[in-house]
């Protein structure tokens, strides 16, 4: 083919686009968009492929019709009509124009983060960067406040709100500041009640409940590091007193494994309250004891059986058997969606006692019983009150 004929052919294709060969067809960039470049030499090629991606392009532009910066120039510059048709269909050949990508991403960000998406996205990126560089603080107990707030709590919140539909009463009984000891019943085979209590306290009062955990918690891999990061520490006198005198809100579940691992038939019957160590810690530091009764947690995993020999072998207090576990495998791990009620009772003050009276076992037993009775009676009241387990 002669040279001029080839030139002529190229011109014939380019001119109808309406740019006169000038680059940057309305895209604002100095170079022609990839769509325009593809268009020029091989029109038939583009005609072959269109069914590839249009739905996606259409979907993304539909989601954010007003914010798309690339859209208006495209329609306005189109003076030549015939070539405009393939131009509109052309983007799918090698990809969607950058502008569309951006607007799609923008739309997605808008969808995920809401109106304030730019700031929140920046925050998220900063959070990720800090985590990757180790640029965060943990307190003496290993509590990682940022991770707890942004990750653990965020993950638990939907479970609390949508699955267990937590109803909270008596929030005014949680002191706004200073040390306090929240004492709760323990149930549910897996200590979900502790996690839900932590979330509730944080969401309603803005304070972090620092749970005291059994030493098994700190012996297990994964669990131990999550527990410390979530603010837990070992349930021992030293740590309890240290936290309470430091002005923290501390949570204890004195029933321990006897409480969460009790059979379903004994639900809502409080077990022995440890040896009353939590009371002597409160007496010594003079902080109030806030009794908490949790209704609903007993039904999440009804414990109907146990494998004591295997439990002994593994060194754990019990191996739970529920109507669904282990029979349904992982599906059996889904807790039943019981409706929960958390009631914080009136604080029991201990500052009227002398710290030295913590050495008086009779007083310690009396206060322990008082706390236990309060929780037990509140549990009975709440049970009478509720309509059904799942309603």
């Amino acid at each position, binding site marked *: 083919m002669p040279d001029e004929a080839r030139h002529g052919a190229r011109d014939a294709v380019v001119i109808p686009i309406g740019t006169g060969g000038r680059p940057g067809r309305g895209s604002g960039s100095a170079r022609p968009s990839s769509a325009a470049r593809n268009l020029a030499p091989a029109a038939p090629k583009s005609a072959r492929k269109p069914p590839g991606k249009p739905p996606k392009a259409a979907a993304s532009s539909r989601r954010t019709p007003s914010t798309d910066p690339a859209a208006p120039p495209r329609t306005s510059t189109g003076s030549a009509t015939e070539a405009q048709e393939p131009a509109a269909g052309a983007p799918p050949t090698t990809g969607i124009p950058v502008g569309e990508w951006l607007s799609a991403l923008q739309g997605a960000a808008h969808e995920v983060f809401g109106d304030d998406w730019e700031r929140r996205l920046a925050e998220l990126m900063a959070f990720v960067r800090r*985590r*990757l*560089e*180790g*640029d*965060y*603080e*943990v*307190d*003496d*107990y*290993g509590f*990682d406040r940022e991770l707890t707030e942004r990750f653990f709590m965020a993950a638990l919140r939907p479970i609390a709100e949508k699955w267990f539909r937590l109803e909270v009463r008596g929030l005014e009984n949680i002191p706004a500041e200073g040390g306090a000891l929240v004492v709760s019943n323990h149930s549910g085979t897996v200590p979900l009640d502790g996690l839900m209590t932590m979330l509730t306290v944080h969401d309603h009062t803005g304070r972090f409940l620092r749970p005291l955990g059994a*030493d*098994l918690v*700190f*012996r*297990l*891999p*994964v*669990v*131990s*590091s999550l527990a*410390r*990061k979530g603010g837990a*520490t*070992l349930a*021992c006198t*030293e*740590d309890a007193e*240290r936290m309470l005198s430091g002005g923290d809100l501390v949570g204890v579940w004195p029933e321990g494994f006897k409480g969460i691992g009790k059979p379903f038939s004994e639900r809502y019957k409080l077990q022995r309250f440890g040896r009353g160590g939590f009371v002597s810690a409160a007496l010594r530091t003079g902080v109030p004891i806030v009794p908490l009764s949790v209704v609903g947690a007993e039904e999440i995993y009804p414990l109907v059986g146990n494998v004591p020999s295997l439990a002994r072998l593994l060194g754990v207090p019990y191996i739970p058997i529920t109507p669904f576990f282990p029979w349904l495998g992982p599906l059996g791990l889904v807790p039943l969606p019981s409706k929960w009620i958390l009631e914080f009772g009136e604080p029991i003050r201990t500052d009227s006692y002398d710290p030295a009276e913590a050495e008086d076992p009779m007083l310690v037993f009396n206060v322990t019983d008082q706390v236990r009775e309060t929780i037990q009676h509140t549990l009975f009241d709440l049970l009478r009150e509720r309509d059904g387990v799942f309603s």
Partner: protein
Amino acid sequence: MGRVVLVTGISRDIGRRFARAAAGDPSIDRVIGVDVVPPRGDIGDVSFVRADIRNPVIAKVIAKEDVDTVVHMSVIATPGSAGGRGTMKELNVIGSMQLLAACQKSTTVERLVVKSTTTVYGSSPRDPAMFTEDMGPKRLPSSGYGKDVFEVEGYVRGFARRRPDVDVTMIRAANVIGPHVSSPLTNYFRLPVVPRVLGFDPRLQFLHEDDLLRVLRHAAVTGIPGTFNVAGDGVMVLSQAVRRLGRPSVALPSFAVGRLGATMRQARISDFSPEQLGFLTYGRGVDTTRMRTQLGFEPRFTTAEAFADFCRELSPAGGSRPMEGAGRA
């Protein structure tokens, strides 16, 4: 009147540097360094006496030089530098006993400063978050450095009972870290890939090497008796430390880390001791209230700053830098 200070274990870098720093202190007249091998490096005004603290010669040195302050810092952490666990135990325990015996006989000794370590508290899942000086280990150490230190501390307490006129200061230092420190923990962080115990994220506390030198000097000069935890403020977790270090890390199950440690010990790559495995699993924190209120000492570096200083030195070199003054007693 200036004091005459005897420092044991000056062939090791930290001992040598302490001796030099003490020699520069205006309230200290003379510093005598004792060890079985001469220190490598400049010891300035320190007079070196070649003596083995495992035999009674040390009593003669104390008597001849009119020593009134003894700083004992030759309890070593790793068998590698001593040439075997047997030698290490002998150096640590018998050496300390001989030194204490010599001090007990001496009429001139007024102060004894012992550099101990927070390793005596051990590491276990039953540990309180913060150990105070009155607490003991939850599980008695059965072997290694922890046991040596535990025994040495017992002898030091016995000495304090028998010689109430001598002010005994015991400094329980947290893991010492810094650009010049060669310890099992710093060597661990110098590994190209840092192995971690899967599912555990121990809390760590560091003491900067400069702060260790300062607190020992402070104790030698003021002579405040008692046992004190000394550590930088704040706590770091291991995963955080590794990320700040910028090294890759790999999480392995506990037994695999132990196996790896044993292999590295045999290959003399790193002094990875079994008690270090416990430390890297459960971590440890110590309370430093008494350090401030009674001892009146304020560390210059927090835990995070001490670690940052260590990282700064480490990052440009990249791989394992030849350790200067890696102690060989």
